[in-house]
């Protein structure tokens, strides 16, 4: 029992000693702020990091990073630093700053600060060791926090872009009241086919569409599963009460469909997009302008 208490006392004492050291080193780094920040910014430029940014910008960011760094060292809490790293990443990612640059500058700062600690405590090697024991884990954790924050932000941006591309790649366009056009361009996979079908069905409902023209001129190849998806899309649209016209079947795709024995009775096909729209307008009861009327006029006139 006594032994345990003794051990606890020692550990408390050592914690107190460590935090004492910590206060001291943070105080030192804060006092040398102007000089160390200058040196750091200098080394960033020398290492040709953050080339997309101007000298003034680098200095401004260096100041913020330095102060956040001190805050994290002093308080041992990383939330503020994390938030700052995310915010910084948000600003610099669009400017093309690379992951290696971000990691590079944080490691440079770690080194600049460490050197300054070496210089200050070089006379007392044992003390220097204890100072570094306190400094290194905190500094490494800061480096990891900033790097991870940057990478996470980058991943988020990439995910957003992927989503945007997916949505853009299957636009559902309303060309007239009750008429939708869905031009499909590129290779279809099951995931895209599903997304396309869901988007089309929602489009039919919100636009109260009656006829849909799906143009597959831009689809290079069609295998059995894609053909199957296409048939399913047509059937699902029909369940909502819409008529689907498929246009732009290439000779190769026509051959594939027939060879695979796809039920063509369910498919309403027209040669090209223009023909498809004309057919759709006819189905919708639009009067298609007839050239005969013009000649009638000229005869009467």
């Amino acid at each position, binding site marked *: 029992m006594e032994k345990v208490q003794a051990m606890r006392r020692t550990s408390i004492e050592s914690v107190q000693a460590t935090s004492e050291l910590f206060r001291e080193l943070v105080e030192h780094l804060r006092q040398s702020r102007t000089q160390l920040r200058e040196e750091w910014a200098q080394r960033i430029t020398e290492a040709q990091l953050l080339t997309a940014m101007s000298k003034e910008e680098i200095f401004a960011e260096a100041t913020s990073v330095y102060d956040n760094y001190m805050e994290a060292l002093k308080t041992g809490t990383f939330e503020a630093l994390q938030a700052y790293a995310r915010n910084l990443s948000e600003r610099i990612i669009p400017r093309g700053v690379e992951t290696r640059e971000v990691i590079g500058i944080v490691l440079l700062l770690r080194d600049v600060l460490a050197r300054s600690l070496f210089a200050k405590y070089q006379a007392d090697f044992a003390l220097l060791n204890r100072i570094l024991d306190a400094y290194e884990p905190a500094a490494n954790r800061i480096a990891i926090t900033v790097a991870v924050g940057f990478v996470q932000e980058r991943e988020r941006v990439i995910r957003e872009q992927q989503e945007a591309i997916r949505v853009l790649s299957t636009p559902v366009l309303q060309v007239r009241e009750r008429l939708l056009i869905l031009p499909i361009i590129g290779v279809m996979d099951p995931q895209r086919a599903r997304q396309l079908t*869901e988007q089309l069905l929602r489009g039919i409902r919100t636009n109260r569409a009656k006829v849909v023209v799906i143009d597959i001129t831009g689809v290079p190849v069609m295998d059995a599963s894609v053909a199957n998806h296409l048939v*399913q899309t047509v*059937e*699902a649209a029909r*369940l*909502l*009460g819409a*008529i689907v016209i498929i246009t732009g079947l290439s000779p190769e795709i026509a051959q594939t469909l027939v060879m695979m024995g796809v039920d063509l009775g369910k498919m309403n096909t027209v040669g090209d997009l223009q023909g498809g729209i004309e057919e759709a307008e006819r189905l919708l009861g639009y009067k298609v302008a007839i050239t005969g009327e013009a000649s009638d006029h000229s005869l009467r006139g």
Partner: protein
Amino acid sequence: MEVPILKQGPYLIASIQSALSDNDMVRLRDALVEQVGRFRSRGVIVDVTALDVMDSFATRTLRDLGRMIRLRGADTVIVGIQPEVAYTMVQLGLTLEDIATALDLEEGLALLERKTTAPGNETSSRGR
């Protein structure tokens, strides 16, 4: 759960209000097949907007309903199938085959109007 059947002019309209059990579905089918003769109706609309699931039994019962009604001399339109429900049905391989469908009640009535007043000039989605 009883499905109310409204008589509107020459048409019968059944609006399903909530999820139906298999027995409810069969009762609805029988009631419509019976009433279409009693009221000498020319068309039947079944509004399934409230159904969040149409499984094999529901689809089959609606398909049978449409065919029975046709044998009784009237047309059927199923209206209001939800996009997610339609997607699931085709994934399951279920279709209503030759039974006509429309977006909603309004569209369904317009479709019946065209079918029953102008035969031979049909622009329904049937059979396409």
